[in-house]
Every structure is written in structure tokens, then in C-alpha cells.
């Protein structure tokens, strides 16, 4: 098996996994927060926030990649300060791939979690309040457990999207083997050269295998959680 993939390809697999996991994990708290705000609050500019969240879905991925490059690039209006103040460089680094994947997956994650928020019966939260739980505790002990199916669904969607993300990633962090070359970038590269199709196909299989494993695990998890939330 280790012969089957070249070292660079192994690295692409590892990188894709790393990027997808980090992208999912890091965006989850933000996803929950934004979904909460969109589901529960009414405020001026809500539609704008909602639009912003959906933007990566609406724009061709390359455009999102360019926008990321313009904002978070070494010379970008955010990127330069991240660099100056925190020494954090994203463009052309694997960390940038995390950002790109997270941004691209964000709308999917937020929608799933938001739907779950909207399905929580506010009467249960009220009941928790009368029992002495402050809003923060209500969130942790009642709301969060009840939206867990949505959180899992959102995380799975985000992970799958991150595994498949290509346009924005290659545009933002390029396609440097061992550094920023994710599985989709590697697949793309093979597809660009004569005779590369079988190689690409191999990587597609790897990609499918990894994602399927993640899906199956998530389904098992989700069905356990769902049974619990249904009160059985």
C-alpha cells in the first residue's frame, strides 16, 4: 500500500486530512455562534451577515480564493497585520489551506446547525431557566446537547467539503507538494497532463475511502446522539 502512493501523494493525503480536521474543528465554534445568532436573534444587519456567510457558496471558488489572497495575502489588508503583529502568515502555507477550507465549508456548517437551533423547543430552555440555570448554563446543558445532531451533520458536511475543496485552496495557497498540495490539488495536477488519468483515479479512490470512513463514523455517532435526544 505504501508503494501504491508516492511520498508526495502520501503527504497530500495527510495534508488533506490535517487541513480538513483543523478547518472543521476551528470553524465549529464560530459556526455554532453564527448559527445561534441567525436562528435566535433579530438585529439590524442580520440579512447582511446571512449573505456574507453564504458568499463562498455563491461565488465561484476561484473568486473566493482571490478574495482570500487579497485579504490575507502577505500584502493583503488583513494579512499584513497578521504577519506584523502575530507573525502569522497564511498565504501559501497549509494554515492558509485550513482557512480556505473553513471559509468554503462555513455556509454548509452554519445552515445545518441553524436548522437544529430552530428545532429546539424554547420551552425546554425556559424550564432550565426556572431551575436556576443561567443562559450560559442553559446553552451548555440543554441547547447544545439538543442541537448535537445538527452539529454533527454540520461538521460532517464541513469535513467532506474540506476534503474536496480545490478552487479556493489552490488559488490562495498554490499547489506546492508537501506543503500546500492537498488531495484535490494533486488530482487536478494529474488531470492536467497527458496520461495522468489513472494516477488521478487512484487518488480519487483514496479520497473517497477517507471520506467514506469519516461518513460512516459520523453516522454511527449521529444515530446514537439522535436516540439520546429523542429521549430513549
Amino acid at each position: 500500500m505504501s508503494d501504491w502512493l508516492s511520498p508526495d501523494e502520501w503527504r497530500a493525503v495527510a495534508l488533506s486530512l490535517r487541513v480538513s480536521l483543523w478547518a472543521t474543528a476551528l470553524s465549529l465554534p464560530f459556526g455554532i455562534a453564527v448559527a445561534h445568532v441567525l436562528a435566535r436573534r433579530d438585529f439590524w444587519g442580520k440579512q447582511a451577515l446571512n449573505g456574507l456567510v453564504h458568499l463562498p457558496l455563491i461565488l465561484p471558488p476561484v473568486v473566493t480564493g482571490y478574495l482570500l489572497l487579497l485579504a490575507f495575502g502577505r500584502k493583503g489588508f488583513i494579512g499584513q497585520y497578521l504577519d506584523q503583529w502575530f507573525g502569522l502568515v497564511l498565504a501559501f502555507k497549509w494554515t492558509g489551506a485550513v482557512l480556505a477550507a473553513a471559509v468554503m465549508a462555513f455556509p454548509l456548517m452554519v445552515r445545518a446547525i441553524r436548522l437544529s437551533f430552530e428545532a429546539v423547543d424554547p420551552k425546554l430552555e425556559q424550564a432550565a431557566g426556572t431551575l436556576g440555570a443561567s443562559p450560559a448554563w442553559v446553552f451548555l446543558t440543554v441547547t447544545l446537547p439538543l442541537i448535537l445532531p445538527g452539529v454533527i451533520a454540520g461538521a460532517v458536511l464541513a469535513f467532506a467539503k474540506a476534503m474536496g475543496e480545490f478552487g479556493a485552496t489552490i488559488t490562495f495557497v498554490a499547489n506546492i507538494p508537501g506543503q500546500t498540495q492537498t488531495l484535490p490539488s494533486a488530482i487536478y495536477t494529474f488531470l492536467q497532463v497527458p496520461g495522468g488519468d489513472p494516477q488521478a483515479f487512484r487518488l480519487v479512490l483514496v479520497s473517497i475511502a477517507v471520506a467514506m470512513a469519516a461518513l460512516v463514523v459520523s453516522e454511527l455517532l449521529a444515530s446514537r446522539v439522535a436516540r439520546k435526544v429523542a429521549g430513549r
Partner: protein
Amino acid sequence: MTLSVALNHQFPGFTLDVNFVAPPGLTALFGRSGSGKTSVINAVAGILRPDQGRISTADTILLDTSSAINLPPHRRRLGYVFQDARLFPHLTVQQNLSYGRWFARPSNGPNFDDIVGLLGLQALLQRRPGALSGGEKSRVAIGRALLSNPALLLMDEPFAALDDPRKAELLPYIETLRDQTQIPILYVSHALPEVARLATTLVVLDQGRSLHAGPAADLLADPDLAPALGLRDAGAMISAEITAQGPDGLTELHSAGGPLWLPQIASPPGTRLRIRIAAQDVILSRQRPEGLSALNIMHGQITEIRLSDDGALVQLAIGAEHLLARITQRSATALRLAPGDPIFAIVKSVAVAQKDIGKR
């Protein structure tokens, strides 16, 4: 501790306009379906924010719309038994019961095992609420509220789904709570016998307004109110003191109208009790009757006779207290009853039910 409630709220098509004071003890909210009972309790809990209102205890203002004070529910130290159980589906019965204890409340509340035993929940502790029966759910909800060690207990028809034997086990506990702690209890029920047994204060709601509010004993003995409370359920309360425990399972009490014998009451002589006698359980007689299976015969004087289509409601003075009797017009005529007449009231001992007895 006294709870004062004044509320005004406008739902589309329904106006809530309520004003009452709940002194220490148990205050029952009584009224027909849709009269606003749950809404009042919700406002006290902080779940419904009324258009205008003020709700306060001696030391805390829970709500004052005129000065924009509105304590959030979790700062009100409530125990609320909702009309629908509202159990947390993702927690086990045990976790549901303990939920209120997770939030830094003084730990001198009731004992977990006691409450679990009282409510018969031992076998259910590890289950989740999803597949509990209706009555099981409401028992867990009651336990959850009691165990949160509240400073104010709100109970919205807590026993509606419970069978009588279970109810009979729980009512004394509520009485003890009422008598031994200082926490005010707001209690919604449409079962008047239950209300009569438990309530120190009665608030009658009708279409969103508090029609009558006052000491339960006074309101229940007021023949004017009987129609509003439901004729069948009219009845008065008299006080009595245990004098002796008979050998044959009867307890002797002393009342203003004479000695009474009730099925065994497990309290020592000297205990003072409140006894409810339903108006329809009283038979009136000109002479002291003989050879009857009924043991309790009280002597009094007719103070008022109120005739209606449904019969006659007769109020008797028994010492300083009052008794209500509901009889037919034909009997009232046949016996030629008139205010001021001396009269005997016959009450079957067993008709004074166990659950109509409350400790003072």
C-alpha cells in the same frame, strides 16, 4: 414570605388583569380552562413578561415594569411544575431530577432518595423520559421542581395525571412543605376538594380577571361564591383538635359543634386540623337522630338559606365557624327551615375524607 402579584397583559383576544396577595402558605389559583391560570404563573416565573405589572416578595422585586426591573427566571429561585411536564429528553430521569441542584443552590433542600421514594421513581432513574407513561412524566416533573430547593414553588395542575393512591401519598407532603417551610406555593388546580384541602389562600380567576381572592376558609364557606366554585364542590372548613385515638381505628376530635370521629389520623392528641365538609355530604335534622351508622352529629344554628334552581344552600353557625349544607328545596320546605333555627348536621365519618384533612 408574602408574594404580591399585580399584572396586566393583552394577548390577541384575551386580557389578563390580575391582582392578589399570596401570604405564606399555599395559594390556589382556581378557574375554568382558559381563564388565565397558567399565564399568571408564567408571569411569576418570568417566562411571560406582562405589558404592565409588579411582582414582589418581602425582600425582592421580581418584576416592576414601571421601573424596568425584570429578574430573569434563573435568578428567581423557582421550582416550577409545568402543566406539560417539560422534561429534558436527553437526560436520564435521575439527571432530570438533579438538574436544579447543579446550579449552586444551598444544599439544605429535600433529600434526593426521599423524594424518589415518595414519587415511586426508583425503577425509572436510569431511563430517559421519551417512553415514560403520562403519570410517570408528571411525577418526574414534580420531583425535579421539589429537588431544586426553591424559594417559591409554582405548581400547574401537578396531579392531573396521577391516580388517587399516588395523590393520597403526595398531598401530605405538599402540606408539610406548606406548613414547615416558609416558601409560598402557587398552586393551580380545578379539583376543588384538592384546593380546599391544601389552600390557605384562594384566588378565583374568570376570563383573565381575579374575581375573588382571600383566605380559602372564608371563600369556601361563602354561599355567594358557591355557584362560581361549582355547586357540587361547595363546602366549608371547620377546625378541630385531636383528643384521643380510639382502639377501633377511629380518631376522636373536638370541634365547636361537638365530638367528631374520623378514620385514623396519625398525629398525636393536641394536633389541630382543618377539616373540609362538602356541602352535599351534610344531612340536616330537626331532632338528634338515633340508630344511624353516621357517627358525627353536630349541633348548630341556621344563619342563612339561599334558594336556587339547584336546591337550597344552608349556612350553619357552629360556634364561631360555619358549615355549608346543600339540600333540596323540597326538604327545606318540608323541614320548615328558617334562619335562627337550631339544627343538627349529620356527617358520615367516612365522608370526611382523609384527603380533606390538613394540618394547620
